[in-house]
């Protein structure tokens, strides 16, 4: 009976799922990052690319794992995924009742996210691409100066993270047609391990220089942009095999 109810609940999703997994085109161009790179002056050039409209869902990741069994949680190399990898699923190839197919997949390592995108003929976005796409709100390609928009993002960060995740694709698309960049999950980037800031942001000025070769450490150019700061702090604190309960991902493709 409970199973039937669950099935009935899933039915309307068939229609909703239409936008899931689709890619939308982003034009690229000159973009001014909220980060401060000692080595970079002037805006960053972003080449045109396509980005998944929504983060990868449990249903899609399950299909991937079934097709590539080396990424099942009971078979994965432990150097590429820590023990919590997909630990919220009921089994190695079953989601179970507590996990909805259209929720974003979480508890995925960088290696697993990378492998998923590669299997799609795609790749993970670079940090630059992700930040560029996420600068937009529903109507503007760059809404970052708007205090109300920042408030909205921050109100998500202040929500407890133990509440159930919403389905992907429920939020209104941004100016590029991309959804859920804020307000749902953190997302891996291809170059997550390039974001090298001190673990403790209060020590930005006196980072342990011996840990890094040469100059070019990161700091924030736009200190009011906490949303970006928190993303960077998150990514720079994770190793490639780490997973968390609210870390997901989406893929991108180059445009010719």
């Amino acid at each position, binding site marked *: 009976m409970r199973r039937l109810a669950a099935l009935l609940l899933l039915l309307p999703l068939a229609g909703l799922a239409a936008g899931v997994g689709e890619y939308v085109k982003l034009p690229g161009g000159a973009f001014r990052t909220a980060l401060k*790179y000692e*080595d*970079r002056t002037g805006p960053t050039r972003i080449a045109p690319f396509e980005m998944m409209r929504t983060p990868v869902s449990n249903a899609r990741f399950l299909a991937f794992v079934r097709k590539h069994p080396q990424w099942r949680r009971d078979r*994965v*190399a*432990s*150097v*590429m995924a820590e023990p919590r990898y997909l630990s919220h699923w009921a089994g190695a190839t079953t989601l179970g009742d507590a996990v909805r197919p259209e929720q974003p997949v979480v508890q995925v390592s*960088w*290696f697993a996210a*990378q492998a998923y995108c590669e299997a799609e003929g795609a790749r993970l976005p670079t940090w630059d691409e992700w930040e560029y796409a996420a600068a937009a709100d529903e109507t503007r390609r760059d809404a970052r100066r708007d205090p109300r928009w920042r408030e909205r993002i921050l109100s998500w960060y202040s929500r407890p993270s133990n509440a159930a995740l919403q389905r992907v694709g429920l939020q209104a698309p941004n100016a590029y047609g991309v959804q859920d960049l804020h307000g749902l999950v953190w997302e891996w980037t*291809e*170059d997550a*391990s*390039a*974001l*090298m800031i001190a673990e403790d942001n209060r020590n930005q000025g006196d980072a342990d220089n011996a*840990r*890094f*070769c*040469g*100059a*070019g*450490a990161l700091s924030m150019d736009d200190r009011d942009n906490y949303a970006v700061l928190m993303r960077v702090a998150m990514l*720079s604190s994770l*190793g*490639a*095999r780490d997973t968390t309960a609210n870390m997901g991902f989406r893929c991108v493709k180059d445009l010719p």
Partner: protein
Amino acid sequence: MSKLLATLLGLLLALACTPASAAQLPKDSVYALPLPLVDQDGRAFDWRERRGKAQLVSMFYTSCQYICPLIVDSGKAIERQLSASERARLGLLLISMDPARDTPAALAKVATQRKLDATRWTLARPRPQDVRSIAGLLGIRYRLLEDGEFNHTSALVLLDAEGRIIARTERMGSRPDPEFLAAVKRALATD
């Protein structure tokens, strides 16, 4: 009779040639990642061929002026503390994070300049698409800077014969990290 002998010999050879490589890789082995490399002599190989022998692994790039020479120093410092037989049982593998510029010739130049014994030291470049994955496995962070230099963390990683990471140090230079050295000696003693 000689035919039977040949068959038997063949069988024995086949058995002898099915060592560790056929056995299943432990789940915590970095050799889960297939990694095609080209060394300082232009020879192509996969790092999984290194299975069977403990390895000291790090990442570097040849045009680096500051820390990368220290990475070589660190490897040499460890070597100096080993007996001849211990040295013979350890492989040293430096993987470039700058495959675009680190051609075999560039790698060979460093090997010659630094007088690295080619029977133990391998300097190698990966495919560009593999650099982040290797770095992820070894816990090394890096970013390519506008001027072509890299900002990166440095580490020496000790792999056992099965490719499991058993020790790691971020202390670079000609004075070896004592705990790390002890781990190297232990690995070579039990191998």
